């Protein structure tokens, strides 16, 4: 059984969990959203500062398990410096990676994303891995519509 566990809790994941990236305050963020997983109590806050359509600064604050925290940390690492259109594509790729049989495309480097693959063996944990990403995307969409955001839930 430890095989599947080790796939889930890879060293990369545990490293992100213990020292999460992006734990920074973002002043006057353009994109701000909070997400919750009501059935287990996870919470995440995502803040993005944009400049000319590019993510200049990322802040991710997670209260949650290793998987949701690591996923938020990987997000922070991966998203900073990217054009917003690109960020949306990556989020789609994360969703596909976690909820379908497709692998990461080989077109470029996806940083530590690969490490989230092990979550699939534990279907109930998929929502943990998705929380930060869904929260960010809904924040971006609200920003694009010019709205303030409601809290998001993954369930």
């Amino acid at each position, binding site marked *: 059984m430890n095989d599947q566990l080790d796939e889930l809790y890879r060293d990369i994941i545990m490293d992100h969990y213990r020292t999460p990236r992006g734990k920074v305050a973002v002043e006057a963020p353009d994109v701000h959203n909070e997400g919750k997983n009501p*059935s287990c109590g996870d919470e995440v806050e995502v803040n993005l500062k944009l400049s000319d359509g590019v993510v200049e600064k990322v802040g991710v604050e997670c209260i949650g398990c290793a998987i949701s925290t690591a996923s938020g940390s990987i997000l922070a690492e991966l998203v900073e410096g990217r054009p917003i259109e690109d960020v949306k594509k990556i989020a789609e790729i994360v969703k596909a990676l976690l909820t379908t049989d497709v692998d990461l495309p080989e077109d470029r480097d996806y940083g530590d994303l690969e490490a989230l693959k092990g979550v699939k063996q534990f279907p109930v944990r998929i929502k943990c891995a998705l929380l930060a990403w869904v929260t960010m995307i809904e924040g971006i969409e609200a920003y694009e519509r010019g709205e303030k955001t409601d809290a998001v839930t993954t369930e």
Partner: protein
Amino acid sequence: MSSAAPQTIETPLDARRLRGDFPILAREVRGRPLVYLDNAATTQKPARVIDALQHYYTHSNSNVHRGIHTLADEATQAYEATRDHVARFIGGVKREEVVFTRGTTEALNLVANHWMLHELGPEDKILLTEMEHHANLVPWLTVAKSTGAQLIYLPIDETYRLDMDKLTGLLDETVKIVAVSHMSNVLGTINPVSDIAQRAHEVGAQVVVDAAQSAPHLPLDVDALGADLVAFSAHKMLGPTGVGVLWGREELLGRMEPCQFGGEMIEWVTYEKATWADLPHKFEAGTPNIAGVAAFDAALDYLEEIGMEAIHEHEVEMITCALDRLRDLGGIRIFGPDTFEQRGSALSFEVEGIHPHDLSTFLDTRGVAVRAGHHCAQPLHRKMGVPASTRASFYLYNTTDDVDSLCSALQEAKEYFRI
């Protein structure tokens, strides 16, 4: 314990063969083989559905949604898979639009008490038909009482069909809700719901459809029907008791207040306030009938394998045969359309000179199970001019042998009571 592999069954369906799938049909009643003709009240269950319940409890029983362990995951999957299945079964709607309830009654009450109560006022009207089951009548009486809204009724004509000519005079902008049964549980009449819905929408009314009798017997496409909200019960379509469905357009369900408060349906709670979860969970507070919902999946499988078209065709055959035979018997008054067109297989009648209770008791001694009473449609019975009637109702496992048993028992009854 496990049921046979699914078989593809040719149209027309072979009811004699299907009977073998329903263990209860092998039993005797008062020394006679059971002839079950009370399907409009509830239907019997194929072994596959009973096995699904057993499988759930011997393999995956757990509470849903809240757990991380394997059993909780399996139970959640089973429960949610049925939601997907229902969404496909009623024409391919969004899974979020499918809410599980205890049955049609709870679904219709949810609509009336938790939605219309807040949207209706004294200047508004609710249009029902004269043939509604109490479940699609009493909630509206209550809503009308508390909001001051007025109830109006589309009448039935002498052929026991809705008098559609009267619709124009009744429908105007003051009508906010049209609540109509797709098929009458007393008369068997199939109502022209898509016509009604189209005209209701023209004046801006919402259309609530009681599909308790149609979902089990007809192909159902809620979108094609033009319905806004639809209710039906699993137990009337081979599924377990204690499971029902409310389907509603996302926009409408979104506007409805939750009706119960507790676990599952909340997003966030403090000692001072709570916010609601998203659809469909906001309507499913507390531990649901997990086993029942999981086993309903097997009932839908069974219905789909046979095909709803084939089921309807088979019932048309039954009802045509029954109408003929009853006419031949003489002294029988039929409440409902006397031809098979736009008609389902619920068949209510009166044997002149024998009270329905006495008739039902007599038939029971012959193993024939029919219903006697007002079938939860008292106002309709007053309109029909009788306090009670006898109802035979057929389903996919009934054969013309059952019609024969019914008719010869009726003949015997007439002799016994010296009519």
